[in-house]
Structure formats: C-alpha cells, structure tokens
C-alpha cells in the first residue's frame, strides 16, 4: 500500500470526486426543501428546484407587469456595465500608474507611499463619502469599484515591473532604446499578462463592491434585485440570482485565463 501522499486518482475518478461535493450539497438541499414543503407548501425559505427554475424563467422571458421590462436582462446589463466600467478604469490606471511607479525612480518615490496608503483604506468605509460626492447615480458605484480594486492592480503591476531583470532594461538601452521605447516594447508587453492575472484576482472584490453599492442605492441591477426581494423572503428569486452571478463570475475568470494563454504564449512557458 502506497502512502496517501503518493496515491493519485485516475482521470475519470478525479472528475467524479470533484463533482461529488456539489451532488451531495444539491441532494441535501432537495431533501430539506421537500421536507419543509411537505409541511407547508407555501413555505418561501427552501423553494424546490422546479419553483426556482420557474421564477428564473419568468424573470428572464416575461416582461415585468410593473415596468414591462425583462427583469433579469435589465439587471444583468446594468450590473455588467458598472462592473466593466469599474474594472476597465482600474486596469487602465493599473497599467499607467503601475508602470510609472515601477519603472521611473522619481515617479516611484512620489507615488508609492500614496498608493500604499490608499490601499489601506477600507473601500466600504468611504462609500458614504462617494454617495455624498458623486450622488447616488452610476458614478458612485463605478468609483467604489475603482477605489476598491485599482490600488491592488496598480501595486501588482508595479511589483511586476520592478521584478523585470535589470539585465533586460540595460540590454534594451544598449540596443538604443529610449525610456518610451523601453515602456512600449519591453515593459508593457511583459506586464500585460500579469495585468490580466491581477484583474482575475480582483474580480471577486469588484463583485463585492458592486453588489454592496447596488444594495444601498440603485433602481436596477443584480445586487439591487436580491436585496429588494429579501424583504419578501423570496428565496426562489435570490438563489437563482446568486447562481447566475456565480456563473458570470466564473465565465469572466475563464475568459481572462484563456485570453492570457492565447495572446501571450510565452508567458506560461517562462514561469514553468
């Protein structure tokens, strides 16, 4: 008998093992839900899978009686727009400020303490300030996401730039590169895959800030919806929404990972 640390499951069994916890959780839920509904068919806390599917389908395909809109898609579009703006601006800031601070010694000295300090501020603590300053519209929500994840992305990019071997920067100079050309041809292309990695890690936080700001002040959005129907303990809406949000988050993560592999074939190879 080999030691446990040396025993590896075969491929198929490995996949099945990965699925097992999901199946168990689902089973437990279905059982609990059935037990509760058997006592009281109108119980809202643990709706059956069928009820959730029906609610989700209705939200996705039937116009709302109040507004005439397809609720799920309106919510999704609103949330994704905010998320894309917030994450996009953060990425741009990450590239520009991170490269400046990491490559140009004067800029690094001037910016690093500020970035470190801002990164220490808990973003949700400044949410009231954002609402007061930018109003309760879209801007405050986007700014909250930027405030929450930009410092992290900036610091990651800066660190990556600082990690570039000095030899490379010297080599570029001996080939006649100016500071600008070092940025464009040496630093930027090598930092870009790291930017995508940092963004992947920051996406979780971005969702958190998005849903938090939507919960407080919004008229549509995925976070707004689940906090709205919370008042009616409408689990048949909340649970599918949570699954939907998780699915979206998973897809973006996958997309960024694939983009990294397709666009920068040299990246993984170097780390290996």
């Amino acid at each position, binding site marked *: 008998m080999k030691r446990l640390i040396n025993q590896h499951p075969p491929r198929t069994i490995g996949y099945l093992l990965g699925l097992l916890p999901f199946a168990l959780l689902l089973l437990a839920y279905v059982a609990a839900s059935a037990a509760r509904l058997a006592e009281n068919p109108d119980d809202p806390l643990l709706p059956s899978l069928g009820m959730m599917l029906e609610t989700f389908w209705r939200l996705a395909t039937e116009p709302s009686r109040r507004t005439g809109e397809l609720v799920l898609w309106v919510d999704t579009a609103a949330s994704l727009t905010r998320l894309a703006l917030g994450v996009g601006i953060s990425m741009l800031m990450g590239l520009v400020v991170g490269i400046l601070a990491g490559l140009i010694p004067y800029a690094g000295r001037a910016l690093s303490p500020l970035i470190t300090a801002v990164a220490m501020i808990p973003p949700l603590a400044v949410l009231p300030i954002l609402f007061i300053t930018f109003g309760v519209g879209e801007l405050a929500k986007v700014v909250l996401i930027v405030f929450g994840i930009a410092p992290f992305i900036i610091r990651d990019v800066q660190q990556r730039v600082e990690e570039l071997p000095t030899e490379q920067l*010297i*080599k570029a*100079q001996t*080939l006649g590169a100016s500071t*600008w050309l070092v940025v464009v041809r*040496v630093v930027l292309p090598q930092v870009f895959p790291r930017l995508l990695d940092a963004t992947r890690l920051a996406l979780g936080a971005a969702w958190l800030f998005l849903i938090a700001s939507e919960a407080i002040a919004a008229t549509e959005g995925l976070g707004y919806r689940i906090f709205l129907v919370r008042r009616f303990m409408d689990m048949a809406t909340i649970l599918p929404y949570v699954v939907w949000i998780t699915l979206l988050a998973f897809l973006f993560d996958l997309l960024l990972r694939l983009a990294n592999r397709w666009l*920068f*074939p040299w990246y993984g190879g*170097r780390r290996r």
Partner: protein
Amino acid sequence: MQMIVTLRNVWKTYGRDVVLERLNLEVRTGEFITIVGASGCGKTTFLRMLLGEETPSRGELLLEGAPMPAEPGPDRGVVFQKYSVFPHLNALDNVLVAEEFGRARFTGRLFGGVRRRARAKALEMLEAVGLTHALKKYPHELSGGMQQRLAIAQALMKNPKILLLDEPFGALDPGIRGDMHALILDLWRRRRLTIFMVTHDLKEGFYLGTRLLVFDKVRHDPHAPNAYGANITYDIPVGRIEPGLFEEIRDQTGLPVAAEVVSRG
C-alpha cells in the same frame, strides 16, 4: 594610435568600502580582453563601469578619448550570463527589435520596405550565430547555448565599439561552451570586435583572450577587509606564457581550474 578605452587612476568606492583602486589601463581596438579574479574582486563592477551602470568615484574613464557616458548606450553591447534576451519576443523579433529601437523613435516598430531591410539584416545576423532554424522560437523554447547565441546576435546588431561579456558561458555545459568559444572567436576575428569578457574560468580566460587581466587585492587589512580595493595584478599578453605563470595565478586567486596550461588553438 587612438585608444578605444583608457583608465587613468580609476577608483570605485561605496562609502568607506573600496572596491577598485588605482586602475590604469589602455586598450586598443581589436583586443580581446579577458578578466579573471576571485569572486568579490570587483571584476563585475569594472564591467558595469564600462557599461555606464556605475561611474568611477575618482579618476578618468575614457571611451575613444571622451568621458564614458554615464548610462548604457548603443556604442557598448553586452551579453549577460542570464536574462539577456526578451522572453516575450521570438528569436527573430529579439534581433529585429534592435533595429526598431534605433529607427522608430515613437512606435518602436518598422513597416514596409524599411522593415524588410531590417529583417534581412536580422536574418543575416542570426545566420552568423547559427540560429536560422529557430527564428520563430521563444527564448524559453531555446537551450541555454542557443539563448546566448541569440543574445550575441542581438548585441552585434548595433555594431558596438566594445562588446562586454559578463560570464556569458558560465551556465553552459562544457561541450556547448566549446562551441560558443569557437563562435565568439570567429565573430571577433571576422568583425574585428573589441571584447571585454569577465570569466571565473581561468582556462577560458587564457584560451579566448589576447590579453588577460587579473583583478586581485594587493593590500590587506585584516581588521578592515574593505579598506583596500582590488587592482589589476597581472596584465598579460596571452600567447607568450611563461611556464608556471598559470599555476602562480591560480594559486594566488584560488580559482578552481584544471592544472594544464592551454595554448591558443
């Protein structure tokens, strides 16, 4: 005759620590200088001064009679032991980028006919180092020896006045190292290069160079190990080696090498 590199009483100090002291040297175009010495004797510092990464604390360091520029530039090419090539560019682009740095000040990229001519020049250079078969490969797909060939091709694209090699073959297998020696000697002869090469392999220093410099500390203060810096203790035109000199230098510097003296092939 104009000297390509001149040092007049050059010192390098960090605070109270003296790394190099009283260096005097004159180097002519076409010399192949090899530099050996125990680790920490300032040979890399010396190379960094030639590169412009460091400036002398005292004395004069001249390139073709003018003060050495205080930052790296295209007149001095370099090959390091590692990280000399750009990991995000394939072999061809790694060499082509040298042309693009010089000619496209804003975009860093060439197009059309200019690009075709630059590409032809890059291909010629890659052929000279024997990498024609690996144009589209990224550095991580190349062996250590091939990466160094690529780094040499890159450095030669600018026709530098001096070529600086910082233990370029130190990480390679002995067999591969032999091939690289043949390559660098061939390039040095055909392109009339002036080379400064730091090595910790005394045998390599004797075999490759036309002139061997040994860096060592002459003065020692046991209570303040950094009070005195290293100096050039031997400056030997290689080829006229007296018997026993090899052993003498080996014993004084403590460099680990086989005991036989290698004559230049």
